[in-house]
Structures are given as C-alpha cells and as structure tokens.
C-alpha cells in the first residue's frame, strides 16, 4: 500500500508567511510522498519558487512535482526547477523515479503536458506552422510520458501532469477554454502502457474525479478544486484486499 498526498496550483506569490509550512509539515503522518502537480509559482518568478521551497524544506516525505504554465510564464522555468530541486523537491520532466516503500515499488513518471483539446475536438497538425508547432509540443509532452511508462515495471505506477489528460476532470470550466486546459494525447499514452493513477491540476473549476478510456483513475488535484490543502490517495494491491478478506466477506 502506498499513500500519496497530492495538490496542484499552489501559485505561491512569495512572502507566504509560513502558510505552506503549516499546511504540509504533518503530511508524513498520513502519506508516504507528496505530489505537487504544477504551478508552484503565481507569476513564474524565481523568488516565488525559492520562498515556496524554503517553506517546504522541512516536509518529512519526498516531494515530487512538475512545472506548470505559471512556472513557465516569465521564462524562468529552468531556474525555477533548479531552485525547487535545491530545496529538495524532485521536478519531473519526462524523468522516471522509482521508490521502494514498505517492500513495494512505486514508479512516478511526470511532465507538464500541454493543451490541444480532447477526443473529437483534438487539434491536429494541419494548416499554419504555429498550429503544427502547438500539436508538436503536445505530442512531445505525451511522448515523454509514454517513454517513461514503457520503462516502468514497478508494483504501482503514478503519472503526474499539470495539464489535464481527459475532459471529464475539466468539466465545470467554460467549455470554450477546454482546448487550453489539456489534451487527450496524454491519456492515449496512459491507456497504451497502463498506469494506476494520473494526477493533474490546471483546471481550477473542474472536478476531482475521472478516468481514461481504459479505466485508469484520473484526479484533478488543483487546490481550487479540492478546497483543501491536499488530497490523499491510498494505492492498494488487490492481493492485499484478497489476503485481508479471503472469503470475500468484509
């Protein structure tokens, strides 16, 4: 069993006054790791990332995250990633991380993802070069996740994105902006290679729960959606459930 605390869209604007320290200092009591699914900063300023990293320095579980569009906003994404890493936060951008927790292995694949729409509304590489560039970016981000998942053979597989992989967890936003909130190319690679949980943020007015076409659970952990400091997910092997209740009675 692996316990995951997850949140996104903290949008730290600096001078946080200890808020994040208070919110996350006891997370080790309920979780084995903390995931932050993008938008550490409000304006993409390095000092915002530094302030947040300082507040999270004493968190007693490993922290894994991906950058979000706000973190890219001011062109400081590399520096922001470096500052977060220096603060002990692992920033994933196509990387794969493997952990062993209580004898079980968990693999985490992460990347920002990108926009482009969902299903029948998916943007295709036709027309002007800028449209093709947009689609190329979405394909590149999806490919990072695909390559990571392809190499994972852990007991549990977790995918962390900032942009949404499915429309279901975006519902609640204005339909006009759906194409800017995520891209189903991200879900396609998850369905091709399998995963146990996909976490994302970005859609502040979306909903928490959804699933991909093959039934992989997707959770939108934007703080504005959760209305709490983080969500908690317990990944449990069905073997554990069968061992605990061998007769099928609970």
């Amino acid at each position, binding site marked *: 069993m692996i*316990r995951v*605390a997850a949140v996104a869209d903290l*949008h730290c*604007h600096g001078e946080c006054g200890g808020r994040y320290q208070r919110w996350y200092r006891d*997370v080790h009591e*309920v979780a084995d790791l903390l995931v932050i699914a993008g938008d550490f900063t*409000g*304006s*993409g300023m390095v000092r915002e990332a530094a302030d947040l990293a300082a507040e999270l320095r004493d968190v007693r579980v490993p922290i894994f995250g991906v950058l979000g569009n*706000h973190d890219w*906003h001011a062109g400081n994404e590399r520096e922001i990633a470096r500052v977060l890493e220096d603060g002990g936060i692992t920033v994933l951008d196509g990387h794969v991380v493997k952990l062993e927790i209580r004898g079980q292995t968990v693999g985490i694949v992460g990347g920002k993802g990108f926009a482009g729409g969902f299903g029948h509304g998916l943007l295709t590489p036709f027309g002007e070069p800028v449209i093709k560039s947009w689609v190329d970016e979405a394909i590149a981000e999806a490919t990072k996740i695909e390559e990571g998942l392809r190499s994972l*053979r*852990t*007991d*549990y597989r977790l995918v962390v994105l900032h942009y949404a992989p499915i429309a279901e967890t975006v519902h609640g936003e204005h339909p006009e902006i759906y194409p800017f909130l995520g891209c189903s190319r991200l879900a396609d690679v998850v369905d091709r290679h*399998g995963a*146990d*949980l996909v976490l994302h943020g970005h859609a*502040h*007015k979306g909903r928490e729960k959804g699933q991909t076409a093959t039934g992989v*659970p997707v959770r939108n952990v934007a*703080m*504005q959606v959760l*209305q*709490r*400091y*983080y*969500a*908690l*997910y*317990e*990944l*449990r*092997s*069905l*073997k554990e*459930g069968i061992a605990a209740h061998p007769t099928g009675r609970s």
Partner: protein
Amino acid sequence: MADSDPELAGQIKRTLAEESSIADLDVDVEVREGVVYLRGEVDEEHQVAQATRVVRSVPGVVEVRNQLVVLPLRGPDVQPEVIWVRPRDEQEREEGR
C-alpha cells in the same frame, strides 16, 4: 449608466487578464457611472487586494467596490480514497507484454 461604462468594463477585464497573479480568476466586472463592482470567488486573500489595486489604476475608474470572496480551504480528508490496483504480472499478462 454612462455611455463609457461598457468600454471601461472591457478595459478593466483586459487589465485583470494581464495581471498574472489574478489572471485565472473568474471575476465578474460591472461598471455603473465609473463605479466598478467586482464579484466572484478568489483563492487567496492577497488576490482581493491585488484586484482592487489593478482596477484602481485603470483610467476612468471613479471607485472600486470589491465584493470578491475568498473561498475557505479545509484541512486534508482524514479518510483517503482507496484505489485498488491489480498486481503488475496480472496486468501485463492481459496486455500481452
């Protein structure tokens, strides 16, 4: 309502959209005779003050009546959501890997 109110409302919305710390917020803007009414929900206290500052800087604004509300955040759930995972070997057999 002054003739210039709709134009001023448009300018205010554009200005709010350019301010990254509040750009993502769903703020309703109404202007009556140059008096600006801001309504909606924001995530943090500082965004309320920031919205007032930004709107006040727009030429033509007589007064800002900020009625934005900060949504209260709750602590984490005590009970986690349990997600059952099929054993890896079983999944791979089914997927033919």
